[in-house]
């Protein structure tokens, strides 16, 4: 039977996937948006035209002009400079928390998927129970009690966003585990660790990578939502969520205050999602099949 697929030789898989990723319009756009934001987050303190803390009461809510490109906020701070720097905290926190979440969730998921049996059943019930509580409730209870510093946010986000990863990793493991090469390794007498590391992990990694990209975008969403609600970054640190929240009150006569942070935040999250989509396609996984838990 003939199939209409090209027979491709994958010498270096990472490179092939990257090439495939960039060759798709969504991948190219997404990846450049993400790279742009990452670079900006690093260099923004050096290129921002004004000090983000500097208040100037003459400028309060002034409209954009040649000097202050995006105008000034209600405290007379330069919105453009604040927008440039508004993603640093979010990227730092989520950038560390995402890999942590994927690693712990992935490890537990693969382990329990492999072990199976009653222990696995119990774990899944606990995971279900955790997922049935809205994220914002879980986050807020922790933040209200322990504060919203980086040292609290990173482990908390990593913990809560790792729970759904368990499910994904477990499902992917179950798919792989039924295949003969795992049986074959078992029959040869390889240790459990060796089977996880050599047989399962390379095959589950694809799913985990895509999952990681998605977790990242949802964490960013969560982070900025928390800031928006006033539970995240504390002023005067600039953050897009907080800036939008602040500028909202003056939207009827100074709508320019929301434009900068809205575009910045949206473009970053869209960038991540486009990349995740293209990555999933390049790896041969269908992302849309998954439920937005």
């Amino acid at each position, binding site marked *: 039977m003939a199939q209409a697929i090209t027979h491709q030789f994958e010498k270096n898989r990472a490179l092939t996937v990257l090439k495939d990723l960039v060759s798709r319009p969504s991948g190219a756009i997404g990846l450049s948006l993400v790279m742009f934001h990452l670079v900006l987050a690093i260099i923004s303190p050096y290129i921002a035209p004004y000090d983000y803390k500097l208040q100037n009461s003459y400028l309060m809510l002034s409209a954009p002009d040649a000097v202050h490109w995006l105008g000034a906020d209600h405290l007379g701070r330069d919105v453009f400079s604040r927008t440039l720097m508004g993603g640093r905290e979010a990227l730092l926190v989520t950038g560390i928390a995402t890999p942590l979440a994927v690693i712990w969730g992935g490890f537990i998921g693969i382990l329990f998927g492999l072990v199976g049996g009653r222990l696995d059943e119990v774990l899944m019930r606990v995971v279900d129970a955790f997922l*049935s509580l809205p994220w914002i409730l879980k986050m807020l209870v922790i933040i209200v009690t322990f504060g919203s510093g980086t040292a609290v946010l990173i482990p908390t986000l990593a913990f809560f966003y790792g729970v759904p990863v368990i499910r994904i990793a477990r499902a992917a493991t179950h798919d792989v585990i039924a295949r003969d090469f795992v049986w074959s390794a078992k029959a040869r007498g390889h240790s459990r660790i060796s089977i996880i590391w050599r047989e399962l992990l390379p095959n589950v990694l694809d799913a985990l990578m895509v999952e990681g990209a998605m977790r990242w975008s949802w964490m960013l969403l969560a982070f900025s939502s928390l800031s928006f609600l006033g539970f995240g970054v504390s002023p005067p640190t600039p953050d897009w969520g907080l800036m939008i929240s602040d500028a909202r009150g003056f939207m009827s006569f100074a709508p320019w205050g929301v434009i900068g942070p809205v575009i910045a935040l949206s473009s970053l999250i869209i960038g991540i999602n486009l990349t995740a989509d293209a990555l999933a396609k390049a790896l041969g996984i269908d992302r849309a099949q998954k439920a937005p838990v």
Partner: protein
Amino acid sequence: MIVMLMRRILLGFITVCLVSIIIFSGIEMLPGDACTQYLGEYQADKELLEQCRKDLDLNRPAHERFREWAGGAMTGDLGMAVDGKTKISTIVGDRVKNSLLLAFCAMLVGIPLALILGIITGLWRDRMPDLVISTLAIFAMTIPEFVSATLLILVFSIWLGWLPGIVLTSASAPISEFFPEILLPVIVLSLVMCAHIMRMVRSSVIDVMSSDYVQMATLKGVPYWQMVFRHALPNALLPAINVVALTIAWLLGGVVVIEVVFNYPGLGRLMIDAISDRDLPVVQSIALIVASIYVCVNLAADLLTMLANPKLRTVYTRK
């Protein structure tokens, strides 16, 4: 099938029990208790603290209180708020009603739209309508809700002045008074849920359209649209049930950010208020309600899938 059904219900029940344990012990594990949290800097006042603890009955061992709380919750008695005077069930009741209203309206718009768009994009895969709708869906899905809400308020409320941008109705008002204030939040919510469901339906339609049985239906001479409606869609929409359920659970679980943006008096805003006020008994109750809704909706979806899928419905299943 009865066995499977019982199994599902039992598992759902176990999950709810686990959730209540997690909630209760989670709150217990926090430093201090409901009263020290509530009183904040006033907790130095021993008398006030003692009074509060007496009101809330906090002096007994944890497992006893859990049994009482869980037992009460089953009969609909959620205990007292931290001020020791208000019954939680009365505060929560109106909010649940309002959240249901919001969710119901969003579902009414979002689900049919999602199904139609998903089918269209799936059938015309990689062609113009698909590319346009799918790109829009990515935007709708990824832009944070508070951003799209803010933009919609800016356009429809401030610039055009068509719709009110904020809900001023009180929590206990009758349903009719929420119109037209409810429209903007409904639009935002249905956009988000529509995008999620649509993408799932699309990929499911694509899967089914490339299946052997659709090819066979075509080769047995079934006209295109008959093939789509009889052979493809019943199979393509089966997996959509679970995604719809998850989005519904998300909607009912209090869409905190949206409710805050529009000042909508739903469960989500109550939750955030309770957390800000450090009213832990109310937080506990909301958590339990939301989790139970989540479990029930998913259970309903499982049952519906079971009914709609002959493979699960018939008992004598071959491998």
